[in-house]
């Protein structure tokens, strides 16, 4: 799966020798069978384009209806009352909650994933490494609803001790203050998201680390480098852009994660200083939680917030792919 994400930027050309054969066939595409088949496959390609255009168009259309009626500032308001008179809603709280929970997830998941990827490729005995790689693959397939169930029924009850500890020693910062409620807060959400994106970041990083040319590692070894120095001198520089893009893919997933957040977080539509007290919300969680009671206007408002989430994930994924593409050129030049 991850290999495909890496190769996605490759141009869709078949390897060289096909070209003359293709041209010959294309010129001779007068047969009805050829025309129908080409039409069908090209039609599917066009369908994909139309679908993307439709997604953008309909989301924008419904969102504009909602934003047109909105009496509050869409970006700065702390209200979410689209069905009220007058309708007022804004995404400030959601931006905050989404960014905070994703940042926590990244801070935890990226170093740990890189650690596991290094463990698999450079530290563990080969059998154990293969086994762990397999388990990580399987974990990537566990649905988010199961992570959510585990998060709220197993992880949340276990967080209490850690929370009281954080409150005791770091509570003075305000960020880690805790009033003793259930641990269904942005911090727990961030930790759960970290676990969820860990497999994908690990998988991609592992592939990149595995591709480090042996001769670069041997160059460092032959200079009398310790294992860590080999990793620092040849593995990490080579894998850096790959790890960055893997992290971006993980971030894209964390930003859009819905059910696990909706189950674990005890939401409230405001921004609190503490990460440990329940409250806050994310784009996706807010859509899932508010959808049930939403009127048509309410649904349009949720679509408007979904638009913003869409744009953010597009930017993040685009950045990830740009980095992958650049890395390809770079490694190609050195091959």
């Amino acid at each position: 799966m991850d290999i495909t994400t890496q190769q996605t930027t490759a141009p869709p050309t078949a390897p060289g020798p096909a070209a003359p054969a293709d041209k010959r066939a294309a010129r001779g595409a007068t047969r009805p069978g050829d025309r129908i088949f080409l039409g069908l496959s090209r039609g599917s390609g066009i369908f994909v384009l139309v679908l993307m255009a439709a997604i953008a168009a309909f989301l924008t259309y419904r969102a504009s209806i909602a934003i047109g009626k909105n009496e509050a500032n869409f970006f700065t308001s702390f209200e979410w009352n689209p069905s009220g008179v007058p309708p007022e809603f804004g995404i400030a709280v959601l931006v905050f909650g989404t960014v905070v929970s994703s940042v926590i997830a990244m801070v935890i998941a990226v170093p740990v994933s890189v650690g596991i990827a290094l463990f698999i490729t450079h530290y563990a005995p080969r059998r154990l490494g293969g086994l762990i790689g397999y388990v990580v693959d399987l974990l990537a397939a566990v649905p988010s609803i199961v992570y959510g169930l585990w998060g709220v029924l197993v992880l949340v009850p276990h967080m209490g001790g850690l929370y009281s500890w954080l409150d005791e020693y770091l509570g003075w910062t305000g960020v880690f203050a805790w009033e003793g409620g259930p641990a269904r807060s942005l911090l727990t959400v961030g930790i759960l998201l970290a676990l969820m994106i860990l497999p994908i970041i690990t998988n991609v990083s592992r592939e990149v680390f595995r591709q480090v040319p042996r001769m670069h590692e041997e160059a460092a070894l032959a200079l009398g480098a310790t294992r860590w120095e080999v990793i620092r001198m040849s593995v990490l520089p080579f894998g850096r852009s790959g790890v960055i893009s893997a992290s971006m893919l993980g971030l894209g997933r964390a930003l859009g994660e819905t059910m696990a957040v909706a189950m674990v977080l005890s939401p409230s539509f405001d921004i609190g200083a503490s990460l440990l007290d329940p409250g806050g919300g994310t784009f996706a969680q807010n859509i899932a939680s508010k959808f049930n009671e939403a009127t048509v206007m309410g649904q349009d408002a949720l679509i408007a917030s979904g638009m913003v989430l869409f744009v953010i994930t597009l930017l993040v994924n685009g950045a990830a792919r740009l980095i992958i593409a650049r890395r390809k050129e770079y490694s190609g030049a050195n091959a």
Partner: protein
Amino acid sequence: MSHATLLPKPSSLRGATLPKWFSSAVAAGSVALGLGISSAAGLHSDIQWGLIAAVLFVVLSYGISAKVEGSRQAKDRTATSLVWVAFLLAVVPLASLIWETVERGVKVLDVYFLTHSMGVVADTEPGGGIYHAILGTLEQVGLAALISVPVGVLTAIYLVEYGRGRLAKAVTFFVDVMTGIPSIVAGLFILSLWVLILKMGPSGFAGSMALSILMIPIVVRSTEEMLKLVPNELREASLALGVPKWRTILKVVLPTSVGGITTGVMLAVARITGETAPVLLLVWVTNYINTNPFKDPQASLPMYIYLQYMNSAGSGAAYDRAWAAALTLIAFIMILNLVAQGIARWKAPKTGR
């Protein structure tokens, strides 16, 4: 040590080295100390003693190693300890996830559970099952595959066999964009089109449409990879015999890559089977059996889990059912994955790799 090695004296190769059992000993010591500190301080959470032990392990191995072996070796050891700690940090919760799901899931998972719906069972009472949810999931996922597979495979054929120029570039780009769409956004799109504009009610089919938005790019990507693996000699051999291109694709290219394409499709199905967010918006959920995916709300395994959790009112019976459904869902996905890999392995040697 660094300067000693510059001098050609015999002892320079003989760094003071800690014995091989050093790391395990420090690890055991750290765990014991962590437990000791925790019980002395009256901390009850296992997360705490685990973290204490991890910190102790890293600090102790650095300290001792720096003293005995010098700072370069100490750094190397610290990196090794950190990598191990990272591994354990991740493995413990993930193992717990699997363990809890299996342990709590097997409680009510039996034939009765698989063959009955929740029709007459109150949310907080024991009994009932997931038959209606399995049925709904199979129908929704099946419909989604029915939409996605032709579109995805044909698009991939276009990109690999015909695609040149602007259109192909645009398709490739937007397939990339599609892979990044959050599932809830796919749900919102169908919601805006199907429900809000066309005024249709919730149905399994509405969910399938959203799921296929998530599935199409996966199918395109994996099919593309498989088609690219087909050697050009095969295509040329067939074309040289005067076989038209479309027949070459149908009779030579696709049969050669059918194993890989099937694998890709099954992995894509596995991926969307667990999707909840779009189903929540478009299919809703019900406690009853609804065999018609084109009309009225329908249950599905992910939504069943969600519903049992939300309506449990803290009831153990509902949680048990949620875990059992989660176990069923994971088992289904794992089986799909395993079968897919089996097919991939079975079909792989043909291309001579």
